[in-house]
């Protein structure tokens, strides 16, 4: 559905996007992650025909985004990062305008708009002037205009920025619903929702792709140690020493968290991957006379992965 090959964007001497290649299958939801300034928005702008690439190609539904820009634009819905809407128009007038521009059939136009107003939760503000809406509503109007015309491909650049947790959950649910029947590229910083909504992720850093896989595979690949999370009652130094003596343990690190007092602390134990160490660990703690309050497997979070793969400039990408 979307094929990007060697896409590059240079602004004079500055390379914003460098040789980026990825694909998105039909019906897939791709998470496009990266720190600020990594090149996410620039890449999206090239896909939508707003910026021309310096080099490389991109095809959406088989059409070149540069050479067949008009054909591509008919098939996409785009929500730019800053949600630029016409402040003087009412919500319904604006959506009507977009519906006309996207060639929505005369007869069904009103029904289409009604449905979108409902799905995006903006029915109650349909007659309000866009400039007077709260950020949350503006965002939803922005999403609504992208949905008009039922485009095959949706490109959403940070659709949940500035929303409160309830609204984020609503948008997330909406995107999940849209996932069947649409191909979606979701640019975001908000990592929890990526795992929940996206089939695969592309992580971009300094204009280059540093990872491209499903969250599951990425986690597996980057997990170099078996990690176990423990909450133990006992003097921290002694507990740590005791844990280190367990067969297979490589590193014991303190872990901040709730429920800590002077005597109760959290730890992450890194051990070799060959054997499940949890039972041995539990027995060891108890036998040493400490109180075992909690023990569970600890997986690399997407945030850990993200931080690992996108270090600040000057350090190498990768693992210790």
């Amino acid at each position, binding site marked *: 559905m979307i094929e990007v090959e060697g896409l590059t964007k240079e*602004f004079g001497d500055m390379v914003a996007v460098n040789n980026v290649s990825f694909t998105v299958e039909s019906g897939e939801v791709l998470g496009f992650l990266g720190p600020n300034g990594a090149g996410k928005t620039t890449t999206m*702008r090239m896909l*939508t*025909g*707003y*910026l*021309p690439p310096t080099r490389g190609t991109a095809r959406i539904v088989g059409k070149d985004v540069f050479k067949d820009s*008009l054909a591509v*634009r*008919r098939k*996409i819905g*785009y929500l*730019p990062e*800053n949600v*630029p*809407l*016409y*402040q*003087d*128009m009412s919500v319904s*007038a604006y959506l009507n*305008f*977009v519906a*006309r*521009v*996207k*060639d929505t059939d005369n007869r069904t136009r009103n029904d289409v708009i009604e449905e979108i107003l409902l799905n995006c939760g903006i029915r109650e503000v349909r007659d309000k002037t866009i400039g007077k809406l709260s950020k949350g509503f503006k965002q939803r109007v922005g999403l609504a*205009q992208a949905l008009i015309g039922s485009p095959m491909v949706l490109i959403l650049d940070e659709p949940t920025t500035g929303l409160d947790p309830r609204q984020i959950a609503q948008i997330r649910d909406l995107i999940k619903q849209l996932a069947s029947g649409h191909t979606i590229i979701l640019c975001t910083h908000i990592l929890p929702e990526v795992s929940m909504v996206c089939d695969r992720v592309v992580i971009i850093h300094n204009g280059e792709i540093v990872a491209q896989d499903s969250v599951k595979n990425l986690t597996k690949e980057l997990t170099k140690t078996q990690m176990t999370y423990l909450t133990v009652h006992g003097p921290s130094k002694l507990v740590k020493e005791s844990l280190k003596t367990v067969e297979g343990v490589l590193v014991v690190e303190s872990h901040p968290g709730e429920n800590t007092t002077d005597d109760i602390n959290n730890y992450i134990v890194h051990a070799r991957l060959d054997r499940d160490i949890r039972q041995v660990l539990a027995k060891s703690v108890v036998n040493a006379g400490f109180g075992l309050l909690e023990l569970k497997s600890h997986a690399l979070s997407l945030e850990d992965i993200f931080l690992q793969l996108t270090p600040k400039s000057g350090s190498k990408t990768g693992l210790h």
Partner: protein
Amino acid sequence: MKNVITIADKEIRAYFASPIAYATLFLFLLISGFSFNYSVYKENSSEMLSIFLVMIYLLILIIPAITMHLFAEERKSGTIELLMTYPLQDWEVVLGKFSAGFLLFIGMMLLTFHFPLFLFMWGNPDPGAIVTGYLGLLLLGGTFLSIGLLSTSLTSSPNVAFMIGAGILFAFFLLGRIVVVIAGTGPIADFLSYISLIEHFRNFTMGIINSRDIVFFLSVIFFMLFASIRVVEIRRWKS
């Protein structure tokens, strides 16, 4: 063509949502009214000529004020990013915005019809000259609008767009004045006279519809609109 209408519709709504259109209209009618007053009472004139001329001088400022935001504001607010990623062709967008400005201009002209009305009530004006005068004004206004549109397509600051537009129109106006000063005949005077927008308007005020003048105005309008479309295209392919 459908998209041209959609864009024009949106722009016209935008005009009437902002106080600027009303303020501009008000000033235009106010100053024209004063000039009409002067013309009728002080000069005892039953012609529209001097009023037409005052209106044109006003339009040199008013039309750039009408057109300045058409592209520049979209760039400034970022809405251009959506406009350029909708399935719209560049010429549709340019023509749509031009049409909106032109319709607004026609509205302004209609609001001045009470002037000739009064002239007919109190005097004996030449009806032909008035009709052709408005026709010429329409073409001149269209030309000003197309220049204003080109100006706004060049920049992302509405203020700069205004200055470019007013600057170009003022330059043309000066050219017209220089012709008078040079007052001679000869190739330079002829050339200046040809490109002076106001000179082409003069025939219309005398009840004459000269195809040469019509062709001139339409050519300038066409050229400016074509240039605007090109500029929009080029800005799409550059960053």
